[in-house]
């Protein structure tokens, strides 16, 4: 089955309403966890991509600080960029504040900073021991986590990158308050990278047209980062036209685009050969550190594009590769079935449709109906 068409249809389904005169346009849900570490209930705003409902795939997770303010426009970016195949579909977990300064600022030696600050390490513990395990056990997640923070949240992103590097794979730090604690994070950065040979992280950070302290401390950070390990992907951008507040949206959009700049298959992807596709997988795996099952959709699309151009034999080859890469996915067998059917290999097509039906039934895949229909049709053709 052709997943890109599927998506269009899902969006229609979002828009069509047969059941009520008026119904809400829903983009996510509100839930909460009780944190023993923080000794309070924490609200969470959760966005699941449309593919979460239509596939059994797992997704990377974006953790978004200042969740209440940024949930809607940030999820809008995810929804848009992933539909453009510029980034993979992602789960978004947005965390509204209770005591913002307490949670987002690192401990200082002098106590003359904003008095209620200093508990960033405890907040990182909350992520490590409570929030991330909760999210990973509740949703189908990939082991790829992205942290986005603004202002004090941006400071928290840097602090966590240095202090708990195992928690996140990538960071977007927007207008980070790096002046905090007499530029404590900048001092830390210097020590942190001393003698470090490898740092497999991705970091995008921005600063707008803001106070001197803000701009200069971020520039100082970028200077230090210039002598860091080669496998550390990072970029610093000055957005001259933005203020401390207006900078957030563009930073998230540009940051995601930059992180995933080689994500999209080249425009002529349908002419990609098998070695090209394999090389592409390898590259993505090296960059992001794990196998991307969302690539299933791309390979699937390559297969259908080849079929559309009448290159049936190549389509079969590509779609067969997808069944080897993702042997648990019912749809890859259905797609291969369609290519084989187009190639006139009806017996082989029937076998693959049948595998799709069996796997689909086992995991309650709603598309099993379709797989069965394909199977029945090809069986009719076979005259049985």
């Amino acid at each position, binding site marked *: 089955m052709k997943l890109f068409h599927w998506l269009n249809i899902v969006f229609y389904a979002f828009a069509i309403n047969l059941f009520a005169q008026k*119904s809400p346009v829903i983009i996510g849900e*509100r839930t909460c966890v009780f944190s023993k570490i923080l000794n309070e209930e924490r609200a969470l705003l959760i966005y699941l991509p449309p593919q979460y409902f239509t596939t059994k795939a797992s997704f990377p997770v974006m953790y978004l600080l200042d969740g209440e303010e940024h949930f809607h426009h940030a999820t809008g970016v995810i929804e848009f960029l992933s539909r453009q195949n510029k980034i993979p579909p992602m789960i978004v977990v947005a965390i509204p504040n209770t005591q913002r300064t307490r949670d987002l600022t690192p401990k200082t030696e002098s106590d003359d900073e904003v008095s209620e600050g200093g508990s960033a390490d405890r907040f990182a513990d909350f992520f490590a021991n409570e929030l991330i395990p909760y999210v990973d056990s509740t949703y189908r997640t990939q082991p790829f986590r992205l942290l986005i923070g603004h202002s004090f949240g941006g400071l928290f992103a840097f602090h966590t990158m240095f202090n708990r590097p195992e928690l996140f794979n990538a960071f977007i730090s927007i207008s980070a308050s790096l002046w905090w604690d007499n530029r404590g994070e900048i001092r830390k950065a210097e020590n942190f990278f001393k003698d470090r040979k490898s740092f497999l992280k991705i970091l995008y950070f921005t600063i707008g047209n803001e106070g001197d302290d803000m701009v200069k401390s971020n520039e100082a950070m970028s200077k230090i980062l210039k002598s860091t390990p080669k496998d550390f992907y990072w970029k610093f951008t000055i957005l001259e036209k933005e203020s401390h507040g207006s900078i957030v949206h563009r930073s998230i*959009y540009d940051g995601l685009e930059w992180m995933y700049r080689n994500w999209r298959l080249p*425009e002529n992807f349908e002419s990609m050969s098998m070695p090209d596709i394999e090389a592409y997988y390898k590259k993505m795996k090296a960059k992001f550190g794990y196998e991307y099952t969302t690539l299933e959709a791309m390979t699937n699309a390559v297969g259908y594009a080849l079929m559309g151009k009448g290159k049936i034999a190549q389509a079969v080859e590509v779609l067969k590769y997808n069944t080897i890469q993702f042997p648990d996915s019912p749809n890859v067998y259905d797609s291969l079935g369609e290519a084989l059917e187009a190639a006139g290999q009806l017996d082989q097509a029937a076998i693959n449709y049948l595998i799709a039906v069996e796997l689909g039934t086992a995991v309650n895949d709603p598309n099993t109906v379709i797989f069965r229909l394909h199977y029945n049709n090809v069986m009719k053709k076979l005259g049985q």
Partner: protein
Amino acid sequence: MSRKLNYLLIFLIAYSLELNAQDSSIAIGIRTQIRSKILNENREILISLPEGYSNNKKPYPVIYLLDAEEHFFHVAGIVEFLSSQKRIPPMILVGIPNTKRMRDLTPKTETDSLNKFSISGGANLFAEFLEKELLSFIEKNYRTCPYRILAGHSLGGLFAIHAWCAHTRLFNAYLAVSPSLWWNGMSMIREAELFLENEHAIPALYVTIGDEREDMVRSNKSLHTVLQNQKNHFAWKYTVMANEDHGSIVHRSVYDGLEWLYQGWFLPSNYETMSLDELQEHAQKMTDKFGYTIVTQREVLSATGNRLRVKGNFNKAIAVLHRNSIQNPEWPMGYDELGLAFEAAGQLEEAAAQYLHAFKKSLATDDPNTALFRQHWMDVQKRLKK
């Protein structure tokens, strides 16, 4: 294709079950339906209201968005973000999903005739639907400013340019993203040229084009040339986004387009140091630009007035806060703030009158600050008795 129908049913059932199960849902708007006699079909409409819509009586500008099944979510996010940053006013977003996209969004050509088998050429009928059915539905059911923006992409962009030329008064500003101006042998270019020669009150136009198919780029370049060569004074901008393709261009175009349209709207962040005259001058400029009465926002007058009071400029504070209470007669806090300024200036009787007004209004409007207003009133009464 029967396949499509199957998906639809499965998904609708699954989704409707889900909808009913969740009351913790995060919603960004509602979807509703209107019956169009003109198009002889039901049309789905998605509507997103700005935050606080139901807590005040203010009217809002409206953005009408084509291809809404794809763009409603992320465009609503842009409107929400930019208005929270005060770069644009809070707005109502009305999304129009397609039924027969090609039929509705393409202007008539000599080769197609709009009969029941035809799939194109119905743009004028669609414009009539907008004018007589949709816009009037929205304006009857929601509090709207007389300022409407149309945003369309691809064929929707073609429709936007067509509407700009042929249904000029329907909208006050047009955002055309990668418009399909190759349509009908680029006939829209000539239409735009004639329009610009004959019409002089021309609505704002924002056009973007990415790194795209040759005929796309060529036809848009021609429009750019027409825009450069015409003599009218109106707001237009043509932007080439070299890093975007035909699909990826949409988000940045809407974001940048709204920012461009509302340049000058944003007050400097130190606005509370501005005088009432400066604030009113800004409001007048915006009124002239957008063609309907725009008053300085309540929060701005409030912050400015309170700051003047704290700084000891009591007369100026009273002037600003008095203006605020006139502009927002239903807002109890406005009277209380004015009372504070009077009290600080030693005009205790005037202060008492304002506090009492705030107190009474708060009872009538279920304002949570009733106790505060009452306390202010009682305190000033004590001072008056001394």
